[in-house]
């Protein structure tokens, strides 16, 4: 009897140890849930409206004359898969759109060693604006493609997604260094910047380590710097800008809740960073009209003076009163109670100026009476994926974590093993 009890308890322990911890306990009201679903659906429309019907490439911004961004295109692929599964567009249509986009990426889009150029001509897929073959933007495109592959297994979509991923020479982008280079241009060759410190790099390094065709050494994961800072008793492994998006992009696809990295849980880290970011902006509430406990969100966005890497502390802490609602929305998996309160506040108070056909516009600044007139593709993408994780049973995480590449990355870097040992302790 005792043996059976011990056995039963052991099984229970193992099951709870390895199953992801639930999202922070907070249940939105039915009204809030309706609003969040509306925002997600409206945000999704950006990708159907601003993606080219022939190539599938998605514009970087809703602004006239904007080129396509390969990262936004990656988000669009993920968005179509989500839109199809949610019934916002027909499954056939979603599949066709994904297929078109993947065929463009596979056969037409300009690339170097599999790395797509950051900005492409929407119609031709040619490199524009002298942009670099970008490692992070390629990773975001590949992540979107691999997610779509999970929605349509055993199809042409999966085949193309694998080919696009398999074609990327991740090791080449290391340029014989310890880190992955940020990019390469035909004119200057490798850029002098490397992914060597914490930010949105985790999705990139995960895919690079998990590659079956050109993997980077697992040590590449361990080597990047994890600088630790403190703001208002929130201890955070922080990104240099302190921008919220750096704590979100990797988390759109990867479920870090049970992944322990050298004693760090990056899900908890993002939650702490989000709380610190909110409190940092609140500390300026006497100087900036826009900041309050219901109005926060410092992240890279357009602003009255152009696109800037706004952020909190720890980190650069650049702020001028500009708030990026996409960042508040995308924090929903980390801080649902604060995010939903802020979203409701934005929607109820600034709907006329800030909300459009495609959800929340990129940013606003009350001090300068400035309201963004545009939407940015990547900001729309992160919003959509985070809302989908929050509202629809963490479906993106579940599908993405099942990818062989992700399993390989976890296995090679020992993240899961550490998770188990931590749980036992």
């Amino acid at each position: 009897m005792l043996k059976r009890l011990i056995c039963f308890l052991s099984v229970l322990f193992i099951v709870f140890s390895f199953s992801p911890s639930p999202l922070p306990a907070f249940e939105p009201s039915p009204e809030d849930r309706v609003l969040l679903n509306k925002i997600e659906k409206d945000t999704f429309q950006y990708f159907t409206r601003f993606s080219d019907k022939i190539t599938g490439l998605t514009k970087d911004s809703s602004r006239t004359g904007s080129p396509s961004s390969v990262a936004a295109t990656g988000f669009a692929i993920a968005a179509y898969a989500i839109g199809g599964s949610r019934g916002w567009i027909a499954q056939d249509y979603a599949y066709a759109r994904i297929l078109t986009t993947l065929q463009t990426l596979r056969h037409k889009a300009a690339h170097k060693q599999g790395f797509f150029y950051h900005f492409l001509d929407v119609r031709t897929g040619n490199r524009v604006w002298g942009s670099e073959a970008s490692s992070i933007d390629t990773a975001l495109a590949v992540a979107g493609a691999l997610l779509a592959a999970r929605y349509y297994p055993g199809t042409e979509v999966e085949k193309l997604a694998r080919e696009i991923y398999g074609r990327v020479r991740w090791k080449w982008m290391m340029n014989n260094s310890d880190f992955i280079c940020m990019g390469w241009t035909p004119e200057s060759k490798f850029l002098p910047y490397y992914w060597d410190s914490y930010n949105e790099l985790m999705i990139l390094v995960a895919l690079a380590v998990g590659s079956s065709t050109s993997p980077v050494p697992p040590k590449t994961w361990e080597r990047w710097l994890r600088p630790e800072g403190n703001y208002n008793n929130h201890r955070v492994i922080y990104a240099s800008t302190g921008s919220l998006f750096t704590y979100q992009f990797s988390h759109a696809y990867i479920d870090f809740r049970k992944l322990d990295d050298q004693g760090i849980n990056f899900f908890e880290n993002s939650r702490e960073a989000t709380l610190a970011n909110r409190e940092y902006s609140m500390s300026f509430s006497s100087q900036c009209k826009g900041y309050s406990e219901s109005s926060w969100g410092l992240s890279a966005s357009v602003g009255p003076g152009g696109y800037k890497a706004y952020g909190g502390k720890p980190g650069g802490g650049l702020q001028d009163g500009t708030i990026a609602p996409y960042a508040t929305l995308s924090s929903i998996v980390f801080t649902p109670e604060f995010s939903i309160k802020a979203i409701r506040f934005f929607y109820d108070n600034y709907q006329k100026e800030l909300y459009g056909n495609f959800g929340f516009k990129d940013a606003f600044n009350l001090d300068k009476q400035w309201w963004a007139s545009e939407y940015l593709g990547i900001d729309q993408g992160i919003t959509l994926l985070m809302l989908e994780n929050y509202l629809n049973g963490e479906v993106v995480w579940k599908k993405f974590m099942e990818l062989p590449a992700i399993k390989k990355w976890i296995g090679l870097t020992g993240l899961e093993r550490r998770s188990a040992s931590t749980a036992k302790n």
Partner: protein
Amino acid sequence: MVQNRRKHFFINKPLQIRFMIAVIVPLFLINLVALAGVYFGIWSKVLETFSNEQTLNDLVTASRMVEYEQARHPVASQNFSSLSFFMQTEKLSQRQREVFKGILNETNRSLLWKFSLLLFFLGWGTIFISHKVAGPFFRFSKAFHEIEKGNYRSRVTLRKLDEGHPVAQEFNEAMKKTDHLLSDLKTLTLEKDAPQAVAKIKEKLSTVQTSADA
């Protein structure tokens, strides 16, 4: 002419400087206001147009490309610059500001030497004009000094472009008459027939009115 060429620009320095200030300061202020008005007017219009118009989308896109990079690799915040004078730049992006700063600096450089040239000509012009006025004053003053010393042969000789030629001519005529009168009187004092000389002197002086005449 060569004889009359002046060796010094400043003949009567205090007078000339006062004259220069009286001329150059208003001229300078008028020029400055006009130049600043044109300069700020043009640039404000250009920047305002740029800020409001979507027609320059390509420039905005090009700026955005750079801003994306700058957001990834933040640079130190910009300090005070010539653009700080323009309110219209508040809503321009960092990259757009850099572009305009370059244009503005180029314009400033171009305007600077033109402005310096203008100042030079203005300075030269006022010295030239003041010289035309101060020169005659100097000549008159010198002539009066000579007369005071008893030299009635002194005459005022002005340059061709000097002001006050009619006055100088009248002065010289008057001096000539006085000189001749005094010369005649001096000659008469040398005559041996004293009573006749006195009568002649009296005759000569009868046309002259002085403070001795009651």
